[in-house]
């Protein structure tokens, strides 16, 4: 029953007869937050800086770093946190005029689900952990960068 209702919801969220809108796919391996959902714009944290894409943007493949994805649909704004991933922007393959923005993130969660206290605790654990070898140092450095962004996004 749950599966059936999830399918119905996804089908409803997929664009049917929509023209000249940006179709956003926001997915992580475990969860497809939205699939081809018509939106106005999406702001993503690229490794070379935060940028916004709208419909008819030029074709782009961008690597994303940890940060907040902002999805705007009319007056409705939604924020998601992404650990890292890629954005693929493609032009329409049919005559609908709807470009597709596909965000594939290793982890994507709504910013409301972030726990600032837990993130602070993890950061202090990472800092206190021994850094004897290169792997430990890399883990601490990458972990600290990610957790700092989690704390920033949770504020």
């Amino acid at each position, binding site marked *: 029953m749950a*599966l059936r209702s*999830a*399918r119905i919801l*996804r089908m409803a969220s997929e664009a049917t007869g929509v023209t000249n809108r940006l179709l956003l*796919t926001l*997915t*992580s*391996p*475990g*969860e*497809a937050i939205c*699939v081809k959902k018509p939106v106005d714009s999406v702001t993503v944290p*690229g*490794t*070379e800086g935060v940028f916004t894409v709208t419909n008819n943007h*030029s*074709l*782009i*493949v*961008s*690597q994303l770093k940890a940060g907040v994805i902002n999805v705007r649909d009319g007056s409705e704004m939604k924020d998601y946190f992404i650990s890292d991933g*890629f954005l*693929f922007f*493609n032009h329409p393959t049919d005559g609908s005029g709807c470009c597709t923005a*596909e965000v*594939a993130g*290793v982890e994507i969660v709504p910013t409301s689900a972030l726990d600032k206290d837990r993130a602070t605790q993890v950061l202090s654990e990472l800092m206190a952990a021994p850094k004897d070898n290169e792997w430990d140092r890399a883990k601490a450095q990458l972990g600290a960068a990610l957790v700092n962004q989690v704390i920033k996004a949770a504020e």
Partner: protein
Amino acid sequence: MFSRLFQTGLRPAAGGLRAVTAEQTRNAATLKTLSIRMRAIKNMQKITKAMKMVATAKFKKDMRTMENGLPFAIPVMNLFQRLPVEDKAGAITYVAVTSDKGLCGGVNTAVAKQVRQGITAEEAKGNVSKVVVIGGKGVAVLKRLYGDRFTHSFEECSKVPFTFAAASLIAERLAASNPARCKVVSNEFKSMVSYDTIAKHTFTVDEAHTMDKGEWTKAMDVYSFEPSIYEVWQDLHEFYYGCVIYGSFIQSTTTETAQRMNAMENASKNAGEMYGKVELQFNRARQAKITTELCEIISGASAV
């Protein structure tokens, strides 16, 4: 497998019955054999029914994982599909995506067959072939013929829910072996009853480097890459390997459970049919025994 079991299990009972009717014995031994056989079939039917129910529950979960996971894996695969496939000579790595458990129809056999055919064709052309196997059944089937070509094998991947981290681990090993050419052989889920076994051409770093520059430009220069393509390519390629493995595995798992459901349903049906046949023989034997006993009583009474 279960149907074979039933058939082999049934044969001595049927033979025994023929012997019994010919010799007109008391049928007690045959009745006992048949009742044991009936109990065995009933137990097997219970097992297959339970397995079907487990597969049904797992299928729902796997289907959900696939529906969520595929939109994640497909974008990067679509990007790489823009590159033209060049038929080159050179070493080739086959990645066989199979399951850890059997009793799921011919899903693993189909993958093994495709790998075997691929390797035979490549080796006939004089190309060196290597094999990476995911799943215990694939290892068991391919080890005998291609054990010397194995570079990596991964078993018990389904013991815990398959994650992108696990796929990345496999992809990392694959990337580290730096294959010249690569094909991922897996089952693509189509519906509850059907699937396609496909050998998906997977672009390797080597292929990307040696590709015709004109073709490369036509496929990739329409995109602006951030950071520049030279900086991001390695990360993107590793992500691509991970997504190919992840996408193939979740589709294969869904196919496996769907096929197990079908296989177990057929096994349960066959068990029911077998039970009916043996029950008929049992009843006939029982009737023959009663008739014999009645005849003996009547003839005994008339003799007095």
